[in-house]
C-alpha cells in the first residue's frame, strides 16, 4: 500500500497547508492585475509571491547555498513536509520527484547559456540539500504535478524506494507570462472556471510537497490517505488544443473509475483552467465517463494555474477538504458555461464520501489522473 504521510503548500495565500485551506474557506485570492511586472509591455492578472514573503521562505540554510528562488521555494516546501513526516531524507530509500514546467528558465534572460537552466541539475541540487542523491524530474507541461505523483507511486511499488518526496513548483517570469499572452490564453481578471463568462486563465506561483510511503496494509487506519489508481493518456489530436471528444481525459477517467466507482467519490477535482476550450473539453470527458452528477470543483480561481505545482497543491487541498467533510468551492463560477452540464460546486458543500479523483490536461495532448481514498471509505 502507498500512503500519504506529510504535505505542504506554499503560495501567496500562505506558507502552510493550513493557512492555504483557511484562506480558501475565507474566499481569498491573490489574483491581481500586475502592471509592468517582469518589464512586460502588457498587464496580466496573476497570483505572485509578494517578494516580502521571500526572506521568510528563504529562511533556511538554503539561503547560503547559491540556490535560485525556484530552488529555495522547493526546498522550503519540502523541508516543512520532511519535518512533519519525521523521515530521514538522506536515507538510501528516499527519492525526490520534482514537478516543474520551466524551473529556472528565467536564468537565460541574463545569460542564454546559463547552467542553472538545466532542470535535472536543479532537481539534484534540491535533493542534495537534503542529502538525497536520488532525483527525477517530470516535465509534462500542465500535467506534471500528477505525473510526479504517478512516478513517485511507481518508484515505491518497484521496491527500491520506501519514501517519495514529491515537490512541485513554478515561478513566473517574463518568459512564461509572455508565452501565455502570445497564446491569447489569459483572462484580464480573476478567472471563472466552467462559467458562461469565462475568458481565459490566470497564471500563479506556488510550491507543494506530498510525501508518500510504501507500507503494509495493516499500517492503515481511518485517517490514512492511500493511493488507489493512476492513469495517463494522450489525445493524439493536437499539441496545443484540447481534443473535441475529450478523448485522453475520458480514458483517464475510465481507468480511475475501474478502480473506484463514482458513488464513492466526494468529488472530482478537475483542471478547470477557465479557458473556453479546456473547460468545454473536460465537461465532455466527465459526461462521457458518467460523472455529470458527481460534484466537480476547480481551484484555479484562488491560485491561477500554478503549472508544475498545480497537480500537487490541488491534490493536497482535496485531501484536506475531505478531512473536513467538505467539497471546496469553485471561486469564479456562477453559471454553467459548458455544453455538457456538470455538477460544479460553486460554494462549500458537505460530503460524507472519502475519496476523490484529481485530473489534469495540458499541452502535448497530455492528460493524467490519480485517485486517492481515505481509510473508512466504504
Amino acid at each position, binding site marked *: 500500500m502507498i500512503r500519504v504521510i506529510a504535505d505542504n503548500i506554499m503560495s501567496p495565500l500562505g506558507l502552510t497547508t493550513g493557512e492555504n485551506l483557511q484562506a480558501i474557506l475565507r474566499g481569498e485570492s491573490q489574483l491581481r492585475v500586475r502592471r509592468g511586472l517582469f*518589464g512586460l*509591455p502588457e498587464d496580466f492578472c496573476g497570483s505572485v509571491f509578494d517578494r516580502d514573503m521571500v526572506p521568510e521562505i528563504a529562511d533556511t540554510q538554503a539561503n547560503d547555498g547559491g540556490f535560485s528562488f525556484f530552488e529555495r521555494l522547493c526546498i522550503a516546501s519540502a523541508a516543512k513536509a520532511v519535518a512533519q513526516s519525521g523521515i530521514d531524507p538522506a536515507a538510501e530509500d528516499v527519492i525526490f520527484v520534482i514537478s516543474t*514546467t*520551466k524551473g529556472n*528558465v528565467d536564468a*537565460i*534572460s541574463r545569460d*542564454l*547559456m546559463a547552467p542553472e*537552466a*538545466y*532542470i*535535472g*541539475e536543479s*532537481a*539534484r541540487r534540491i535533493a542534495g540539500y537534503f542529502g538525497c542523491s536520488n*532525483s*527525477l*524530474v*517530470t*516535465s*509534462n*507541461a500542465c500535467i506534471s504535478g500528477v*505525473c510526479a505523483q*504517478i*512516478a513517485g*507511486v*511507481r*518508484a515505491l*511499488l*518497484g521496491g*527500491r524506494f520506501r519514501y517519495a518526496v514529491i515537490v512541485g513548483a513554478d515561478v513566473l517570469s*517574463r*518568459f512564461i507570462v*509572455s*508565452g501565455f*499572452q*502570445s*497564446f*491569447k490564453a489569459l483572462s484580464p481578471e480573476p478567472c471563472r472556471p466552467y462559467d458562461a463568462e469565462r475568458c481565459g486563465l490566470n497564471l500563479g506561483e506556488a510550491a507543494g510537497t506530498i510525501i508518500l510511503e510504501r507500507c503494509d496494509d495493516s499500517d492503515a487506519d481511518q485517517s490514512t490517505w492511500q493511493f488507489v*489508481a*493512476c*492513469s*495517463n*493518456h*494522450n*489525445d*493524439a*489530436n*493536437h*499539441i*496545443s488544443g484540447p481534443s473535441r471528444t475529450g*478523448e*485522453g481525459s475520458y*480514458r483517464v477517467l475510465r481507468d480511475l473509475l475501474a478502480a473506484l466507482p463514482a458513488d464513492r467519490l466526494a468529488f472530482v477535482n478537475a483542471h478547470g483552467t477557465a479557458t473556453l476550450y479546456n473547460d468545454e473539453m473536460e465537461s465532455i470527458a466527465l459526461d462521457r465517463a458518467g460523472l455529470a452528477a458527481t460534484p466537480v470543483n476547480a481551484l484555479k480561481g484562488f491560485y491561477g494555474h500554478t503549472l508544475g505545482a498545480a497537480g500537487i497543491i490541488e491534490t493536497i487541498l482535496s485531501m484536506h477538504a475531505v478531512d473536513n467533510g467538505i467539497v471546496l468551492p469553485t471561486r469564479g463560477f456562477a453559471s454553467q458555461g459548458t455544453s455538457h452540464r456538470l455538477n460544479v460546486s460553486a460554494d462549500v458543500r458537505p460530503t460524507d464520501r472519502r475519496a476523490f479523483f484529481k485530473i489534469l490536461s495540458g*499541452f*502535448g*495532448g*497530455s492528460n493524467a489522473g490519480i485517485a486517492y481514498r481515505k481509510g473508512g471509505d466504504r
Partner: protein
Amino acid sequence: MNVTITPEGVKLDRAIVATGSLAEIYRAHIGDYPKFFKMDSLSKLGFLAAEFLLRDIPPEQKENAAVVLFNRSGSLVTDRNYQRTITLNDNYFPSPALFVYTLANIVTGEIAIRHKIYGETAFYILPERDDATIERVVADMLLTSSPTMVVAGWVDWLDENNYIADLKLITN
C-alpha cells in the same frame, strides 16, 4: 528494436540505414507529413526516431502504446530561441508557434498524433544520461499500466553537430 539518430545518420539495430541532416532523412524516408517542418529540433529528432520504430506497426497495436522519453537539456535550445524574441520591448514578438515547443513533452505529443497513440506519454529530465534509471522508470511504469508496446529512450538536442536519439521499441 533499437534506433539511433546522430549526426552520423540513422542506425537500426546498429546498421546504418540513412545519413544526412534531419530534413534530408525526412525527405528520403518519410516525406508525407509536412507538419514535420513546423516542429522544433527536439521534436523532429524524436519524431524521426519513432518513425523508424513504428512505421510498420499496424494501427490497432499502436493505439495503447506508451511513449516515455528522457533527456538532459529539456527544451533548452528552443527556450533560448524563444528568449531571443522577448528581450527588448522594441524587439518583442513572442509567438505561440515557438512558445509551445518550450515544453520538452511536446515531442511525445507529436509522436502520439502521428501514430494515433492514446496511451501514456511522459517526459523525464535527468542530470545526465543514466540508462539504469531509464530502464527502472520504464519497468516501474508497467506496475500501474499495461501498454501494448513502449517506445522508450533518450532524445537530446544541443545543436546541429550534437544530437542523439537512442530509442527502443519494447514489445512482449
